[in-house]
């Protein structure tokens, strides 16, 4: 598993070294399945290898009508979600999109999905470049 993740990271980095793709590595990209057409959350860990500042500014996917970058916040025992315009990616510092924190909110499925499938998600960055990442659909209860 670790080795697969590592090679995936290397692959993404190699791809990024070529024209057009931003210098970032993404690992552990997954979507937690929910029934029907309920919105689902996408999680991943992203690290920028750019020499200067870079921001994640949005995402889209052919499998969803609408994708938003969100952050769950808890204030005085009440949980709510906040829309996020962009996420700063400091060079070499991994940023984790995890349950209860940053996540992609994937809404309005264009096709039925089930656990085990891979779904492409395109991440957009402040330098205008995009990166296609394959997200694995996990069960509702996670791993």
């Amino acid at each position, binding site marked *: 598993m670790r080795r697969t993740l590592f090679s995936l990271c290397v692959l993404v980095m190699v791809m990024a070294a070529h024209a057009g793709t931003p210098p970032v590595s993404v690992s552990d990209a997954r979507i*937690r*399945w*929910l*029934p*029907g057409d*309920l*919105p*689902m*959350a996408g999680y991943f860990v992203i690290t920028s290898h750019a020499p200067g500042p870079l921001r994640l500014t949005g995402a889209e996917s052919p499998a969803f009508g*609408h994708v938003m970058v*969100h952050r*769950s916040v*808890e204030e005085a*025992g*009440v*949980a*709510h*979600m906040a829309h996020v315009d962009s996420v700063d990616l400091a060079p070499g510092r991994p940023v984790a999109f995890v*349950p*209860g924190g940053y*996540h992609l*909110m*994937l*809404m*309005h499925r264009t096709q039925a999905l089930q656990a085990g499938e891979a779904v492409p998600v395109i991440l957009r960055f402040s330098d205008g470049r995009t990166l296609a990442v394959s997200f694995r659909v996990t*069960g*509702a*209860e*996670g791993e």
Partner: protein
Amino acid sequence: MTAGAAALRRMVVLLAGLLVACGHSAPPWGLRDISGLMPPLDFTLTAASDGAPVHGKDFQGRLVLLYFGYTHCPDVCPTTLSLLSHAVAGLGERAAQVRILFVSVDPARDTPAQLKTYAAAFGPEAVGLSGSEAELKALTKRYRVSYGYGKADARGDYEVSHSSAVYVFDRAGEIRLLIGPTDAAPVITGDLQRLLAEEP
């Protein structure tokens, strides 16, 4: 013996007694102990599974984990429900003596059918419950649970804010523990085991 010495002696006896009492007291709970701070489990709601009315007392004899949320919640609600589901699964065969009650605070969107499949995704112990506005108000007021609705966007999607706490009731329906978002599954499992080991 002088009065001062007698008083001192009484003090020593009292302190020794306290020490013995402390030595015999149960170890602290892993979760937050809120025994007696809230009223016993009582509500009237509708079961998403079959549309039948359900009452708090229907769950007597089982441990109850009471949680409020909504199905269009992609992050916090499934995260909490899967945490509870993993914690309950850790009880092995005794998991059947626990119910996870997921009460929807979004009756406008959460149809019984949707709530049923949503709850079912989190294991056999999860039960989806919905209620009229009055029923929800009564229950959320009873446990000081707050919720509110965000503005709908162009697609009609809106966000719901809701209390993140999970209330744990013992088999007699008395409030006992509070589960917060940072509690780990093994800690929850350990406390549920202790509650199940108590005299019913």
